[in-house]
C-alpha cells in the first residue's frame, strides 16, 4: 500500500466486505429455517442437512476453480476478441497462488472471494427448496456445485464484471443480480424439476394440483424474514464502497470519490437503501392482495419484489422501484400457479417464480427504464437497452440456468441417482433416523424408570 490514504481506503474496503459476508450468513440461516418449516415433519432433518452441506461443498469448489473462472472468463471462451480467456487477470485466483492465502501484501482477495462465495451459496440454496422431499441429497449436492461454482460464476464473469462481454456488447445492466443470481437459479431449478418430477400425491388423477402445506407455516415466514435481513448484506456487497476517478481510470473527470456498482459506475449506499425498502414494500403490498393475505406468498412476494427491482435499483427512483416490485410480485404469484396447472411442475416453495420469473421480468423492465443510459464508466460500451437486456435474460434464465440444470439432472437420473424410491418418499427421508431416535428415547426412558 502506498500512502496513508490508500491504506485507509484499503482497510475500510476490506472491513466493508467482511461485514457484508457476516450479514449474508443470515440468508443461509433463513433458508434452513424456511425449508425445514416448509417440508413435512418426516423430511425435515434431511432437508436441513441438504441445505447445510451446500456451504462446505460450494466453498471448497469455489476456492479450487470458481474464483478463477470469474477472472478468466469475461470475454470467453471465444466470444469477444479471440479466445477470450484471460489467464493473466486470473493469476491471483488460482488456488495455488500466494494471493489465495495469508498474504500481508493483500487485503482484498479473501473478503472479495468471500462476498462472491456467499452469492454462490445463495444460487445453490435457491434451487434446494424447489426440489425438496424427493431429491437424493448426493444428487442435489452435485447440482449445487454446478450452479454455485460453475454456472453462476460464468454468468457473473460475462454480465457482472466491469469487463464482461455482455456489458460491452449488450449493455447488460444487473446491479443487484436479478439475472446473475436469481433468474439463473430459478431457470436451473426449473430444468431440474422437469426431470425430477413432482412429489407423490401432488397431482390428483385428473391432473389438478393439491396444496401440500408446510409443517410449520409460522417458521416458514420467519425464515423468509431472516433472508430479507441477510439480503441487506447482499446489496451492500454488490457495491464497491469507495473509489476515486483516478483509480477507475475511465471517463469520469474531477476528483470526487464515489461508491459504485459492480460495473464501476457511480451509485450510493443511500440510494440502494431507499430502493431496497421501497421495493420490499411494493412486493409485500402486491403479494398480500393477490394472495388474499396468504402468509407464505406475502413474504415471498416481498422477496420477489426486491428481486424484480434489483437489476436497476442502483438508479431507479424509490417510487419507481416500488411499482416495479409490485408488478414483479403479482406476476411471480400468477406465473407460479399457471405453470403448476399447465405443465404439472411441482415447485415446493415457489422458487422458480420468486427468483426465476421475477428476475427475468426485472431484467426486461430495466432495459426500458434505463434505456440509453451508460452501462459502464468506460468508453465504447453499449448503452443499456431493451433488446440487450432481453438477450441477457435469455442467457441467464435459459442458457446458463435451465440448460445445465436439465442436462445434469438428466445424467444423474439416467444413472438412477437423482430421485429417492417411492417407498422411501412415502416413509419419509428421516425414517431410519426417526426409528433410531424413538428407540434411543425408549431405551433411556426404560433405564431411568428402573432407577426410580
Amino acid at each position: 500500500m502506498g500512502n496513508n490514504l490508500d491504506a485507509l481506503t484499503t482497510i475500510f474496503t476490506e472491513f466493508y466486505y467482511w461485514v457484508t459476508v457476516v450479514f449474508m450468513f443470515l440468508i443461509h440461516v433463513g433458508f434452513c429455517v424456511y425449508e425445514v418449516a416448509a417440508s413435512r415433519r418426516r423430511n425435515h432433518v434431511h432437508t436441513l442437512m441438504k441445505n447445510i452441506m451446500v456451504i462446505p461443498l460450494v466453498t471448497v469448489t469455489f476456492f479450487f476453480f470458481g474464483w478463477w473462472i470469474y477472472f478468466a472468463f469475461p470475454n470467453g471462451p471465444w466470444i469477444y476478441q479471440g479466445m477470450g480467456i484471460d489467464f493473466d487477470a486470473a493469476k491471483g485466483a488460482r488456488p495455488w497462488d500466494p494471493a489465495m492465502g495469508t498474504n500481508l501484501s493483500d487485503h482484498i482477495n479473501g473478503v472479495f472471494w468471500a462476498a462472491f462465495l456467499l452469492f454462490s451459496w445463495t444460487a445453490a440454496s435457491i434451487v434446494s427448496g424447489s426440489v425438496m422431499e424427493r431429491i437424493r441429497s448426493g444428487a442435489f449436492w452435485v447440482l449445487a456445485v454446478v450452479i454455485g461454482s460453475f454456472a453462476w460464476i460464468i454468468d457473473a464473469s460475462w454480465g457482472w464484471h466491469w469487463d464482461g462481454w455482455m456489458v460491452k456488447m449488450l449493455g447488460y445492466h444487473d446491479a443487484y443480480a436479478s439475472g446473475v443470481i436469481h433468474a439463473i437459479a430459478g431457470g436451473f431449478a426449473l430444468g431440474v424439476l422437469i426431470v425430477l418430477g413432482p412429489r407423490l400425491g401432488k397431482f390428483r388423477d385428473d391432473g389438478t394440483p393439491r396444496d401440500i402445506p408446510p409443517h410449520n407455516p409460522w417458521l416458514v415466514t420467519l425464515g423468509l424474514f431472516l433472508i430479507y435481513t441477510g439480503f441487506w448484506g447482499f446489496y451492500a456487497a454488490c457495491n464497491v464502497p469507495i473509489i476515486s476517478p483516478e483509480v477507475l481510470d475511465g471517463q469520469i473527470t474531477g476528483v470526487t470519490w464515489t461508491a459504485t456498482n459492480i460495473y464501476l459506475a457511480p451509485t450510493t449506499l443511500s440510494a440502494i437503501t431507499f430502493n431496497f425498502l421501497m421495493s420490499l414494500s411494493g412486493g409485500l403490498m402486491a403479494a398480500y392482495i393477490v394472495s388474499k393475505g396468504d402468509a407464505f406468498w406475502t413474504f415471498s412476494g416481498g422477496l420477489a419484489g426486491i428481486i424484480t427491482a434489483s437489476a436497476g435499483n442502483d438508479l431507479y427512483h424509490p417510487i419507481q422501484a416500488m411499482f416495479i416490485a409490485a408488478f414483479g410480485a403479482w406476476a411471480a404469484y400468477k406465473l407460479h400457479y399457471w405453470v403448476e396447472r399447465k405443465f404439472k411442475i411441482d415447485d415446493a416453495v415457489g422458487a422458480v417464480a420468486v427468483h426465476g420469473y421475477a428476475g427475468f421480468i426485472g431484467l426486461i423492465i430495466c432495459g426500458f427504464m434505463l434505456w440509453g443510459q451508460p452501462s459502464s464508466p468506460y468508453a465504447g460500451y453499449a448503452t443499456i437497452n431493451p433488446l440487450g437486456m432481453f438477450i441477457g435474460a435469455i442467457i441467464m434464465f435459459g442458457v446458463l440456468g435451465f440448460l445445465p440444470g436439465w442436462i445434469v439432472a438428466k445424467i444423474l437420473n439416467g444413472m438412477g441417482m437423482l430421485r429417492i424410491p417411492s417407498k422411501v418418499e412415502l416413509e419419509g427421508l428421516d425414517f431410519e433416523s426417526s426409528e433410531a431416535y424413538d428407540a434411543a428415547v425408549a431405551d433411556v426412558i426404560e433405564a431411568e424408570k428402573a432407577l426410580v
Partner: protein
Amino acid sequence: MSTNGMTDWAVDLAEVGAVYPFQGSEFLMFILGLAFWIIWHVLQFRGEKHEVDHEMDADSSGDKARDVIGRY
C-alpha cells in the same frame, strides 16, 4: 436519447445530482404512489370483510369454536 439524460459517464461527479430515470415526473410518481397506497387499503378492507363474512357463516353449532378454545 436516455431516460435520465446521460449517455455516458464523461462527467465531473461534483456537478452530478439526480440520476434516476424520468426526472421531472417526481410529483406524478408521488400521486400515483399515494393512489397505490389508498387503493391497497380499499382492497384490503374488502378482502377482510369477505373473509369475516365467510367465517360468520361457518360453524353454526359452535363445536369447532369450542374445540379450538379447548386447544388454546
